[in-house]
């Protein structure tokens, strides 16, 4: 396939759209594909289906919005990208409302991993069809874990830097817009475009607090948190981590073991609006039903249209907020969150960034039974940075065991996004 070369830093393949359509049938990565892309020379971006676009459906991969819900407005991050010349080529599949990390809980069906070992050697070909840039959301790790399927780099910026206006929330205080791109250079460029205060988002950090942090790599001190190496780590991940750290040392980086003791403690309201009244799927109550309580009427739509993972999390969240459970669950969770933040603050007095594996294993098989404990252990690796609102980038790293890419996470103190990306670039260059 052709690789067009332009002054525009966003390189793009001219025949991308045709390829997307043909490949999507077997991959199911897109839930909506734009009909016309006015300027084929500009960058195309895939936008996760829980980020609002006024021209394509925003289904959040849920039955309750699958009835062709089109948002009346664009998310701010979409507007910013479009203003810089990028075009939305389609909406990408995801777990329903972002709840999950394996893209299997979607009303549109699961996403099949396009990264197959036989195509691995021709890296460019393997990435054909997929846009070089994607916008996602990361609440507990979903963007950082996407690299396993898209083999691209993933950045979850510091909380509050990228606007959440138009981003359908899962957990307001954790959600971040994430950037998936083919390399750090592109990620940095997109980050710079989107790193703008948005007055429509009350959690958007004011301009005065946004400073370009230090990006000096000399005398870099990298911390390796002990708690992020559970027994469940697969051999391929251990191998990739070891080699990365060795290569960094060879570059003159100091590796320091650190301890984040509250890691193990770390793992609902936003779903109430989906009642089928203003928009979305509405299932009419069957004739003869008791209509005296509004919540009963809503339950017909919600029972049918929400997937099981979403229902599970709604019930969990509702329970933890109920009068009986509030002190034991919600308040305790807030306290734990504070402990997690303090752990990171202490660590960053001694080191500049932290490095650890993003996932306990490479991409699992679709039909393998998901072990509840496994996903809990997996959460340990990504959730703490979300709880603390810290920037984290996940870089695909070679592994010699089974050939699949392994994600390596670099985590920095709040606001150190540029440094985190710089370290990511270093790791990328070592590959």
């Amino acid at each position: 396939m052709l690789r067009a070369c332009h002054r525009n830093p966003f390189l793009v393949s001219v025949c991308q759209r045709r390829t997307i359509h043909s490949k999507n049938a077997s991959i199911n990565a897109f839930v909506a594909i734009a009909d016309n892309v006015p300027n084929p020379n500009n960058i195309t971006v895939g936008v996760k289906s829980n980020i609002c676009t006024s021209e394509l459906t925003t289904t959040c991969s849920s039955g309750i919005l699958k009835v062709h819900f089109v948002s009346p407005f664009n998310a701010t991050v979409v507007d910013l990208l479009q203003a810089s010349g990028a075009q939305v080529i389609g909406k990408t599949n995801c777990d329903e409302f972002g709840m999950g990390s394996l893209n299997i809980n979607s009303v549109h069906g699961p996403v099949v991993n396009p990264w197959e070992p036989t195509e691995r050697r021709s890296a460019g070909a393997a990435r054909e069809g997929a846009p070089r840039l994607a916008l996602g959301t990361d609440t507990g790790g979903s963007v950082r874990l996407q690299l396993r399927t898209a083999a691209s780099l993933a950045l979850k910026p510091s909380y509050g830097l990228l606007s959440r206006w138009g981003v359908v929330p899962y957990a307001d205080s954790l959600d971040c817009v994430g950037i998936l791109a083919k390399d750090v250079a592109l990620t940095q460029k997109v980050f710079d475009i989107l790193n703008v205060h948005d007055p429509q988002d009350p959690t958007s950090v004011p301009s005065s607090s946004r400073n370009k942090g230090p990006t000096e790599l000399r005398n870099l001190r990298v911390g390796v948190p002990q708690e992020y190496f559970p027994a469940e780590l697969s051999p391929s991940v251990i191998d990739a981590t070891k080699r990365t750290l060795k290569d960094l040392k060879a570059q003159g980086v100091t590796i320091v073991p650190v301890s984040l003791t509250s890691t193990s403690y770390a793992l609902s309201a936003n779903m109430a609006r989906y009642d089928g009244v203003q928009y979305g799927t509405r299932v009419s109550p069957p004739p003869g039903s008791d209509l005296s309580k509004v919540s009963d009427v809503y339950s017909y739509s919600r029972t049918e249209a929400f997937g099981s993972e979403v229902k599970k999390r709604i019930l969990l969240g509702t329970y933890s907020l109920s009068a009986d459970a509030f002190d034991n669950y919600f308040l305790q969770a807030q306290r734990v969150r504070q402990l997690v933040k303090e752990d990171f603050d202490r660590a960053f007095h001694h080191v500049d960034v932290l490095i650890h594996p993003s996932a306990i294993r490479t991409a699992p098989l679709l039909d393998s039974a998901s072990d509840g404990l496994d996903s809990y252990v997996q959460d340990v690796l990504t959730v703490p940075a979300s709880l603390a609102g810290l920037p984290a980038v996940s870089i695909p790293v070679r592994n010699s065991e089974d050939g699949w890419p392994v994600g390596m996470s670099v985590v920095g103190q709040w606001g150190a996004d540029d440094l985190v990306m710089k370290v990511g670039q270093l790791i990328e260059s070592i590959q």
Partner: protein
Amino acid sequence: MSRLLLDGWHVVLGIETHAQIKSRQKLFSSASTSLLSHGSNTNFNAFDAAFPGTLPRINPKCVLLALRASLALNCHVQQRSTFDRKHYFYSDLPVGYQITQHYSPIALDGYLVLPSTGKQVRIKQVQMEQDTAKSIFESRERTSYIDLNRSGSGLLEIVTEPDLESPDEAAEYVRTLQATLRAVGASDGNMETGSLRCDVNVSIHRPGEPFGTRCEIKNLNSVRYIVAAINHEIERQKALLVTSQPVAQETRGFDHHRWETFKLRSKEDAPDYRYMPDPNLGVLAINPAEIMHVQRTLPLLPEASRTRLIEKYEPQGVTRDDIDVLIGLDAQSDNGALPEITATAYFEKVVDNGRRDPKTVINWILNSLLGHLASQEKTFSSNHLSVNQLGEMIDMVASKELTGPSAKLVLRHILSNPPSSASLRQLAVDMNLVSMTKSSSQTGIEPDLSEICRRVIDAMPSEVAALQAGHRNVVNKLVGGVMKETRGRADANTTRSTILSLLK
């Protein structure tokens, strides 16, 4: 402090008031707040309709008005307050939760003074929260319609301690609260148009015994209903307690057709709202300098206003009752339209710093103006008769250019027609009511008063004979004749003296 006894029982009342904040935009969205006149579903945006991906943004004007109200109610303003989500499902709540201030409201521990007794009613707290949409049930179609205009508008919830002891006290509290909120511009406080609603908590107990179980009566939207609902509830609870039955803790409504309270839900059915801090809204921080600035810019409150009026005008013959009626005129704007200026301001403008006698002015307002308005079933409004028109009328009567009766004719004419900006003098001339005076006849425009007197004398010979025989009061009949001829324009005294001098 001895508590009031009503028929042998102590009555304990607490009131929760929801007042719509008088801002142009809503509490967390930039959509406009609405008036009743606006078409349904014309003032809302994606946030009010709970579209996915929308976020709240606080309106600083609402915070300012909440501050003004809190300070007017003598509250302690919290420098840090927060917002919480109160969750429940209802079709007038699109997003499934209301953003309110449950854990940490903006103001605490204030009080409101009841003017008639000087009693202080303690205010427990003032908080900001969102209003719901309006649902209208069309019984013919058996369909509920939702109007989103009101969804997300700002409300002030003002909660009292259970310090009120009678329906009358409750009524006075509500009226005083309305006046206070209006004075600082925080709310229109109109119950009829819905910008003020009250929930009342009622319990009764025998002297010396602990407080009884309270019932809450929700959504009372007029002072009359509040009084009626409390009275009915007292009787209902009394009837239970005297027969040794317990009063169940319930939430009740008031049926204004049957004039009684009815059960809405019991304690067991009360929902668990699962209050949770709203993670999108941080802490509302208000610095002390700002609080002081707002305090300094507060206008005179109704209580202070009353004191000032009494001090200024009582020495000049205006009674306290007169002043209270004047103040009360604004509290009773039931038609939902506020007068352009308050009745007290109207009064003072006509008095015009002593240019006119206050006693005369207030009599004109309270007797003539209000009287005429009442006969036409209208309430006071400065729109009906302008300050200038009333001033001119009083001046013309004082200078005898208008007789009392003529003035009242002009007044009735003005009030029966759409408001006009014509000067009173012009209207009086047009109606041919300007007094006949000796000087006016000399210009040749007006018929000579003496001429008319002569005509009347000629037309009433028997009365003249009686007068000349010594029955002095008969002259009044002759004066009456002249008045009839001149349609009241002649001055009575001048006429009498003219007739008498003609008959000498």
